[in-house]
């Protein structure tokens, strides 16, 4: 049954890995599809892969099962889309990256550093008034880190979309035929 907008609060989080031909314009086709079909997504990241002819798009969305099927079917209609997998969260390594600039002077620095140590994240820049922290991890871990840092004053923050790989020796791109055509 049509259920728009497809993304509802409280729906289950899904991570889709979309293997696409590595051609110009692919991202525009995919993101345009999400926009015009009213599919709200949480994050989208595109990257090269182990194969030069294939790029990989990782999409996360809070969505119910039926609209999710429609998203997958619509994506499959794009000719540059080669394969779509709805990753099983139990069998997937899922990571995001955040760079966060936190206010930290002589008085609060040691407290912040303690958090850094506990979360096993890294300090990549230090200034008398601030720290820049680089953290990778699952979305939940980064959320709780940021919640703690918030007390000290977050000056600036940037966060990547989620990327994900399945566990075990198999690659999603096995048996996927790509193409080395460079034009649109």
């Amino acid at each position, binding site marked *: *049954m*049509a259920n728009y907008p497809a993304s509802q609060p409280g729906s289950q989080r899904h991570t889709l890995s979309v293997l*696409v*031909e*590595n*051609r*110009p*314009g*692919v*991202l*525009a*086709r995919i993101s*345009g599809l999400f926009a*015009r079909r009213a599919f709200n997504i949480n994050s989208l990241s*595109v*990257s*090269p*892969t*182990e*194969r*030069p002819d294939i*790029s990989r*798009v990782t999409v996360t969305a809070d969505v119910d099962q*039926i609209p999710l*099927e*429609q998203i997958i*079917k*619509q994506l*499959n*209609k*794009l*000719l*540059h*889309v*080669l394969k779509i997998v709805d990753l099983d969260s139990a069998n997937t390594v899922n990571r995001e990256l955040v760079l966060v600039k936190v206010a930290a002077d002589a008085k609060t620095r040691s407290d912040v550093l303690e958090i850094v140590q506990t979360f096993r994240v890294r300090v990549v820049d230090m200034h008398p008034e601030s720290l820049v922290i680089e953290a990778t991890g699952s979305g939940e871990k980064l959320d709780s880190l940021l919640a703690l840092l918030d007390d000290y004053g977050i000056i600036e923050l940037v966060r990547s979309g989620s990327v994900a790989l399945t566990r075990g020796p198999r690659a999603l791109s096995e048996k*996927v*035929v*790509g*193409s080395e*055509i*460079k*034009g*649109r």
Partner: protein
Amino acid sequence: MALPTPLQAFSAVPKGPVEKLSADKRIVNGEKMTGAQAVVRALEDLGVEDVFGLPGGAILPVYDAINDETKFRFVLVRHEQAAGHAAEGYAVATGKVGVCIVTSGPGATNVVTAIADANMDSIPMVVITGQVGVNAIGTDAFQEADIVGITYPVVKHSYLVTSAQDIPRVLTEAYHIARTGRPGPVVVDLTKTAQTEELFYSWPQRMILPGYNPTTKAHGRVLSNAAKLFGQSYRPVLYVGGGAVRSDAGEQVKRLSDVTGAPIVTTLPARGIVPESDPAVLGMLGMHGTIAATGAVQQCDLLVSIGARFDDRVTGSLPDFAPAARVIHIDIDPAEIGKNRQVDVPIVGDVSTVLDDLIPEIERYQAINGKPDLEAWWDTVNDLREKYPMQYDESPDGTLAPQWVVEELSRQASPDTIWVSGVGQHQMWAAQFIDFHKPHSWISSGGLGTMGFGLPAALGAQVGSDRDFDGKKPVWLIDGDGSFQMTSEELAALFFNHLPVKIAILNNSVYGMVRQWQTLFYKNHYSATNLMDGEARQGDVIGEGADEIMDVPDFVKLAEAYGCIGMRAFTKEQAEEAIRKANEINDRPVLIDFRVWKDAMVWPMVAAGASNSDVTYKPGVQPLKGIQD
């Protein structure tokens, strides 16, 4: 492991000197020619016989390559939108791919409406547009428009061709994509660079489409499930849509109906898929469908959707549509299945192929389990059909009843006639009152509802009739005065190309469908719907006398200005005579201006968003209310 490449998904067309392929990669087999010549040659090699278009700066090299030796017929239109619609009309009439060639910028944006129309109605079409040179892309150059970007939402696929060497392969792929799977429009944007460069032309070309594998054949499990559902259902209906027309499945649909005993209802694009005279055909369903068709679907226990997509104009309020029915959905596009309605048996595949496999499966099931008795069901359906036939009232003001005009056109026309319509009331009356005899004999803009579709589509249909049927299939366009004015310039293209299209304008002097809604839902506030092009009555002198009488344009004079024959009919006698004359003229287009009543309404009607069970047969009569279980 190969190193990751730079992320091409973000990057655009490379600028600078065009990359020369290294000697080992360059193709040196084949005939040397320019990209423009390769376009023409590739279209010839693909078997394209007719091309529609209009030239311009960025596509000039291709037009330069079209000459007396060119194997396809080129039809010059007067507006790029018409080139697109003509290609659509040609495609529907012949079942082949429609091809049009237009220029960059405004030429390309003008054709977007036709592309969107073809996308909604799944019409196979290749649109070749010009584009500025590779080094000018992104500079806001003269007549530059990112047509690939503009058309992302409304194409099946699109290409930006930057190198001549790609042209034969890209055209091969475009043609293949347009006609296979769920048909649709493919845009090929040809940069001037690609048109002027030289290449070595070789044929045939290998297609490289790793992400394109449409399913055409259904697997066995779903077929036996479907056969079982047929065996368990006592009120089945076949709901047949445009996909069955694209798949040329008229014969299979008829056979399925014979084998199962199920009645057939059709959507707008599927009119004529099985002849209207067949007793199993209940007519069109939905917003303006017959009571029998809409009523049968509302009461059925098995709805078999065959190449249809549960459009809102068909279903009305979705939760109330065929509420007791289990659903078998046959469609070549998996994304259509479960999009609007949950399905019990999904069958992905080409309609003809699926039905060819399904019918023996059903026969096997019937041989073992017998056939359900549908007598009670047919009694119900026939009761609706007899009690609520299509009907209309004569006009109270002495003008013609538009429905009568359509019936008379149908009565006098050859059974081979290809009927084309614009969009509006006249389109619904045509769909309701024409006695369709054959598939591929009804061309209309369904999904997008593009006013102005009629005349250029009729042009394309006539070109197709000339090509495939030796002109033996006459083309009648039933248009409205509003719809016709959107593309009336194509009368010139009809005249110069000797296309004897017959045009019936149901002239009610208003945007009739909008007026009908204003009457029913906007308290008779006729905001911006008076066209004043059909006010005169029998005996009035048009263009003179009373101030109220405007009649601009005078459609008869307009036809004559374009070298066509124009006639006008106020009365039934005049109408019968004009239609008889028009059917005899075969050397030029004929236009008849039928003066019809402006307050004639399309009935039956389901108000937008209402349940189909609330259908109004005529004002005050809602025969389906409360009868369903």
